[in-house]
């Protein structure tokens, strides 16, 4: 009996190792090791093709060079603005639309949810292509609609002041539905009795949601906040497809700057330094946010 028990335990720990190793092994080889190698390259002078053993140690010089370049500082600032603008627009809209989807007693709610969610699932490159034509100043429909409303036509992606906002609108359109679905999932967890009790006490719509919905939704909102930050800080596809950082670097973002530094200029060391800086920013911000929301 004891023999059998022992062999069972052994076969179970064998299974633990066997089942874990494919997934963990792949994550180690294709995620963990590359992160360490990026850190290593960032401390060396190196092109894209030079072997690791022949790279010259330069310490933190790449980091200094990268920060001295106004272009990377601009790219960092731009991606922060992009992220912030997305947060400011998406967070309230997601809450409002989530409440609407959850509470509205109308036909077509499922259709609305599907349509909201659909853009999130299609390639960002495709979304960028379509919006590129929508924004087209002369032949595009958006300026035509503005003309109907007696508003002046805009430069959109061609304008230094509007290009970034245009990319933000594109992202809001594409990803809003995903966050709405998360909010709806959070709302279904709130017990209905709370609202009934509040109604009995005469609380109106605003007060009910301010004192019940928002506090009880804070874990979901924290999650939305963190995912939104992580996703927007790595924006690359629409910039690559639509603007390549133009006009006058107004849409240059960190991921794009890193990509062309590596693949167009062949400066693997500097590009790796940029990647490590972004990694540090993303990790610090999301851990800080998680902690902040936990303490609320």
């Amino acid at each position, binding site marked *: 009996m004891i023999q059998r028990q022992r062999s069972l335990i052994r076969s179970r720990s064998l299974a633990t190792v066997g089942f874990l190793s494919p997934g963990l092994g792949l994550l180690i080889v294709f995620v963990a090791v590359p992160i360490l190698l990026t850190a290593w*390259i960032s401390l060396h002078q190196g092109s894209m093709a030079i072997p690791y053993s022949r790279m010259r140690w330069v310490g933190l010089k790449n980091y200094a060079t990268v920060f001295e370049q106004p272009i990377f500082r601009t790219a960092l600032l731009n991606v922060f603005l992009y992220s912030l603008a997305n947060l400011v627009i998406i967070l309230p809209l997601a809450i409002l639309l989530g409440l609407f989807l959850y509470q509205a007693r109308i036909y077509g709610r499922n259709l609305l949810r599907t349509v909201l969610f659909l853009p999130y699932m299609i390639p960002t490159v495709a979304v960028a292509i379509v919006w590129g034509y929508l924004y087209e100043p002369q032949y595009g429909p958006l300026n*035509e609609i503005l003309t109907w409303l007696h508003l002046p036509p805009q430069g959109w992606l061609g304008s230094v002041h509007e290009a970034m906002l245009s990319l933000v609108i594109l992202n809001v359109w594409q990803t809003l539905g995903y966050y709405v679905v998360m909010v709806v999932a*959070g709302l279904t967890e709130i017990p209905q009795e709370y609202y009934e009790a509040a109604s009995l006490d005469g609380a109106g719509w605003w007060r009910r949601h301010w004192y019940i919905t928002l506090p009880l939704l804070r874990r979901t909102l924290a999650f939305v906040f963190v995912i939104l930050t992580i996703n927007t800080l790595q924006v690359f596809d629409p910039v690559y497809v639509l603007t390549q950082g133009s006009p006058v670097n107004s849409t240059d973002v960190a991921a794009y700057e890193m990509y062309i530094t590596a693949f167009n200029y062949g400066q693997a060391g500097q590009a790796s330094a940029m990647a490590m800086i972004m990694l540090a920013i993303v990790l610090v911000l999301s851990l800080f946010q998680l902690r902040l929301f936990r303490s609320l």
Partner: protein
Amino acid sequence: MSVYTKSYRRPSQGRRWLSLALQYLCMVLILVIMLFPFFWLIASSLKSPEDLEALPPVWWPAHPAFSSYRTVFEVTPFARAILNSLIVTVSSTVGILLTSIMAGYVFAKHQFRGKNAIFVCVLATMMVPQFVMLIPLYRMMAALHLDNTYPGLILPNLANGFGIFLMRQFIAGIPDELLEAARLDGASEWTLLWRVVVPLLRPAAAALVLFAFVFQWNNFLWPLSIVYSPEMSTVVLSLNGLRTYTSSVTFANIVMAGTAIGILPSVLLTLWAQRYFIEGISLTGIKG
């Protein structure tokens, strides 16, 4: 609702109608905004070069022409790109499914030292931006002469933290008694996983398959980095190429036709199985 509330504040018939009308108005407005880009995509793909150049813009072509859906296959190896995308996407989806089920099962139902620490590391990989790994991955594939090949496109995408997390969340909900009963009957861990756990996992596995498929189909940065010949191009890469080489607005019909075809798998999958997607998001979202 108790009788008390009903008598307490019951909106008048008129206000009920008004609120209902407002709700429908909101819904229609959102639908129009969300669907307009899709409308423009289809309309443009059916326009002639003259329609595309017309001022003010033509909203719907007087004579819809489907010829651009043929042209797009002539100006780029688009059929090949579709095949490439299918090969890459299906392989990595199968890989992700297998690795995630196995690892998710262990994290949900096995006990061993350091489990939580390892699981936190797996979760942390979800936070790491794709471009942080890009240079070493590119060098790795180039050193193995796997750049511009299927294995090069597939290998880095055979496992991910999200999949393991999703599977763990679902499998944790399976009662331990069920597993113990099968163990008492002498089932090995292997048969336990595939005979007992996996059949219960069907909705979760569907969610993961769909997520993995769509995200691999949509992936841009990795193919952009390691593919350099048109024959190895994926659909998304071809779309970017089309747009770059035909910047003139008169070719918009061809670019839009390609785009319409390129989004079709994602759109169909989403419509067909949105229930699973939404369950997946809800599960990882709430308990995250």
